[in-house]
């Protein structure tokens, strides 16, 4: 019991003094996950909106697959990206394995379906209300997709926050393709797993608290934004 309270004390000291190791890990985590969300948004937003707007054969299947991919197991994504980037893999020449960029790729693969599927849902709802008016303006498909993405902007920010929450809290994929190398690819989740198994509870707890605050903060922000959007929609 004494050990645990000592670990908590040390954890708070690490946070309050903004300990160098701790900050390095936190910042790398944020950098990797933000980049992953940026990449995922670049692909997922237009993809989701296009599926919402364009009618084509097999669309129902595409939507079902997109929704199913939201539940991709991180370790499977890690394995797939590992195989792709390993020396013998098709992208092995890029030498990305065990770098932060590999972690960005893995998290982007994980988050893209989430952003695409939620964007599809959001934009499809809007499409019902806007379709005829926009077509009456002579807006084509591309213009329709761009307009609806802009009209849905508030909801889409919460979609991206959800993606970020998933990315930053994930451990399986980044540990496989990043390798949890000290000062290179060690992020919050992998560090917590390692430090706990070593019995170094102070750093693990300190990182755990920071991660918790980030994830709760992001989710809180997301629901707050949703609530204010509702109010606007009612007005």
């Amino acid at each position, binding site marked *: 019991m004494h050990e645990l309270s000592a670990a908590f004390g040390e954890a708070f000291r690490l946070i309050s003094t903004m300990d160098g190791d701790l900050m390095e890990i936190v910042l790398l985590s944020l950098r990797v996950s933000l980049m992953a969300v940026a990449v995922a948004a670049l692909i997922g937003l237009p993809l989701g909106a296009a599926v919402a707007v364009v009618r084509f054969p097999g669309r129902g299947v595409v939507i079902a697959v997109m929704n199913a991919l939201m539940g991709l197991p991180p370790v499977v994504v890690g394995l797939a990206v590992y195989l792709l980037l390993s020396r013998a893999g098709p992208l092995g020449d890029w030498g990305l394995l065990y770098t932060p960029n590999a972690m960005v790729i893995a998290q982007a693969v994980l988050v893209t379906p989430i952003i695409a599927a939620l964007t599809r849902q959001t934009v499809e709802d809007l499409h019902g209300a*806007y379709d*005829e008016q926009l*077509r009456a303006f002579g807006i084509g498909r591309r213009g329709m997709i761009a307009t609806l993405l802009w009209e849905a902007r508030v909801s889409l920010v919460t979609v991206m926050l959800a993606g970020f929450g998933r990315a930053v809290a994930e451990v399986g994929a980044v540990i496989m393709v990043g390798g949890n190398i000290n000062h290179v690819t060690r992020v919050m989740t992998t560090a917590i797993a390692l430090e706990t198994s070593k019995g170094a509870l102070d750093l693990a707890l300190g990182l755990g608290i920071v991660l918790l605050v980030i994830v709760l903060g992001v989710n809180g922000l997301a629901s707050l934004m949703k609530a204010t959007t509702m109010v606007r929609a009612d*007005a």
Partner: protein
Amino acid sequence: MASAAPRSSLALPIRGEALALRRGGRLLVDDLNLSLEKPGITTLMGPNGAGKSLTVRMLAGLVEPDSGQVTWAGRAPDRARASSVGLVFHRPVMLRRSALDNVRYGLKAAGVPRGERRERAMAALARGRLEHVAASPAWVLSGGEQQRLALVRALAVEPEALLLDEPTANLDPASTLAIEELVSQAQARGTAVLLVTHDLGQARRLADRVVFLNAGGLSEDTPAVTFFDQPRTPQAQAFVEGRLVL
């Protein structure tokens, strides 16, 4: 801008020939012929379910008829000429941006050069007496203001034809009057207006010509004076007299 100089017509005449439309096994529009040829206000009237809204959507090129055809100036409607035919719905569709940007969006869609958009949008807002809300988000405007904005947005591009689907159905008398003034102004500038309405008073105030639909078909297409004085069909007669048409 309001010059009467003849320009080559992109949209007029708008013709619907032998239009038929089925939904879920029910024939909603049946062998309908309707055209909008010259400036003036045509009101499209008739009971609910007579096919008025669908007819407007078909003429606007938004809904394909199952048989028959719609032509704008002799050719099938296409996207490039869409801005020549303005459309305002029963419930205004507002973009989630300022009133000014709503109008600018329409101008951009119509291919108006960027440099002219702001000035034209402000002029259009002024005609609708909405310049004081130009910077306000469209969603905070009242229902009447939103509908006026929708109409202003449609008129800003100076369409040849204006299709209005019950634009004043949800509005109070003052808002209705403001809409009617804008519609009259548009007519005076040479726009051909098709106005769907249930409001007999509104039809009397505005219409040059009345088209009366009943059960998906045309039952009357006459000058307004004739329609109100001597309706030919019993349904129209009942309608004019204010009896319920069933």
